[in-house]
């Protein structure tokens, strides 16, 4: 358990709803849910995940902190926005799902090896380094995340697409040598650090 998690537990005790309302993006909407279930029924991935949005909201209210934050449910959201469109109370469900995912990630509770989380991490790390996403390194990191052998298999399977991208000028093989960066790399990094500082201050996140 991370320090941030220990601190959160100490601060909110058993009031998980309050924790979500204060610290999760759009979390204050959770108490507006009237449990009609239309989001669950509308989700194209519905049958494939453990907890539907309305169930997650009920679990939050019931104080099931551990179960919610370690769940992979919110990582399954593909942002199709079906739930937001149909929600009779206009809850920004997609955004809440992403907010929960982000919060659980910051607390270090998100499930290890969850593919969406892995991709998000790779994307983010690539982005903050140079201010640009290095697509070549990003894809290769994706292919090889489950080991070298699997990586070769993945790369072979995708080589047609890769060559097509190179021919079309959409992918530069030379990017492997570090790749291009934006003009003010340091500026971007400072900006992100500042944004993080503001977010931490607003949500009372320390450690």
């Amino acid at each position, binding site marked *: 358990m991370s320090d941030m998690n220990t601190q959160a537990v100490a601060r909110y005790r058993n009031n998980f709803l309050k924790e979500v309302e204060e610290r999760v993006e759009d979390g204050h909407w959770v108490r507006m849910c*009237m*449990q*009609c*279930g*239309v989001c*669950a*029924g*509308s989700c194209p991935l*519905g*049958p494939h995940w453990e907890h*539907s949005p*309305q*169930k997650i909201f009920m679990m939050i209210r019931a104080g099931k902190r551990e179960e919610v934050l370690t769940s992979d449910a919110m990582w399954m959201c593909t942002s199709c926005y079906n739930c937001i*469109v*149909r*929600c*009779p*109370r*206009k809850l920004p469900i997609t955004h809440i799902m992403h907010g929960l995912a982000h919060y659980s990630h910051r607390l270090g509770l998100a499930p290890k090896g969850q593919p969406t989380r892995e991709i998000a991490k790779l994307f983010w790390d690539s982005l903050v380094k140079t201010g640009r996403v290095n697509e070549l390194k990003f894809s290769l990191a994706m292919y090889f995340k489950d080991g070298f052998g699997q990586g070769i298999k993945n790369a072979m399977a995708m080589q047609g697409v890769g060559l097509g991208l190179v021919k079309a000028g959409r992918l530069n093989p030379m990017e492997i040598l570090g790749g291009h960066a934006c003009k003010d790399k340091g500026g971007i990094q400072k900006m992100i650090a500042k944004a993080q500082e503001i977010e931490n201050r607003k949500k009372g996140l320390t450690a």
Partner: protein
Amino acid sequence: MTASIPTNQTILVVGGGISGMTAALEAAECGKEVILVEKTPTLGGRTAQLYRYFPKMCHPTCGLEINEKRLRGNPRIRVMTMTEVTAVAGRRGDYKVNLKVSPRYVTAACTACGDCGKAVSAEVPDAFNYGLAKVKAAYLPHPMAYPQRYVIDPSIVGTPDGEAAKAACKAGAVDLGMQEETAEISVGAIVWATGWRPFDANKIQPYGYDRIANVITSVEFERLADPHGPTGGKLLRPSDGKEARNVAFIQCAGSRDENYLRHCSRICCMASLKQTQYVREAYGEGENGAKSTVYYIDIRAIDRFEDFYAKVWQDPTVSFVKSKVARIAENKENGNPVLHGVNTEGYHRYATEHDLVVLAVGMEPEVTGVKLPEDVIQDSSNFIEGSRDGGMFGAGAASSPLDVNRAVQSATAASLRAIQVIRKTASTEAA
């Protein structure tokens, strides 16, 4: 007609449904002069289109008949059908109201014998049956119509069908030269009893009302159950005329939804509970008997209606699923609608087929989209709260989503307020 000239001692009631009739009668029976205007050719409104009332399961014809008798016997009420209010000027105690009277093409000499209807061949959609059937272009709006006078649809005026109707009339009541008329009247107070309309189910895209034949609305189901309806009271589904034994009722179809109607329409839970009993009465219990399923967010059977809910809950032909249905698909082979969603009691995903789906559509104020006098105050759902000058009042379903019983109470209250305005005006003038 020997009605007196309207003055600022007159009360105008707009809308001739159960609320408007009640407001007009209560005021007139207190000795006030009343003008009752109605847009359609008959009084009775949506109440006349119901098969039965909840919770007593009695017929609306009974109450309508009593009110029509009261109307006939009261010289203080002047009923104007096919009449709309086009403008209101002035203030409390002294309004000038413009009226537009559409031509009926049939005069008061009509005896409602029906000969014109027999002589005409053209047909028009039957508004009384929500367009589920057609009616001859010379018609009596419905059996309880008040006044009992035929109407000729404008589409046949100037055609041989129109002439045939005129020729067939022994009373000489057909006047094809009738024109639209306007009038300006003075009144002291106005009661808006403009009522409601069923929410347009086409707007609820995932429910497929516009694409799936066997998805209908609750008001249409009322007409199917009524012996005066298009199926003679048999619960036959639209696609193939098959008996609908396995019926789904979807609650909050449009209501309690920020995307459609923000308010709870209040009547729909009771209406669906009532309609499950139509299915039961038609097919009884047993293997191949009635089967009703109510999909709901929560059942709102207010105060004394709880007993009715408890009774229906015990009914073995009725089951309840706590879920707002996500979408409806169609089984192309048999025309059955398939309901998709999640039962939130245990989070079970379902895909359930039914013979027929009834959408319990919400109540939308009939004045939605209509420009009312600036002084009228409406809430966020367009229900009429009253007016800034205190001389105009909402009554019945125009003021709030109400069932018939509560609409009548609301209309009586509005009538009393209008009488107070008239009395105040009178005493000021006397001083």
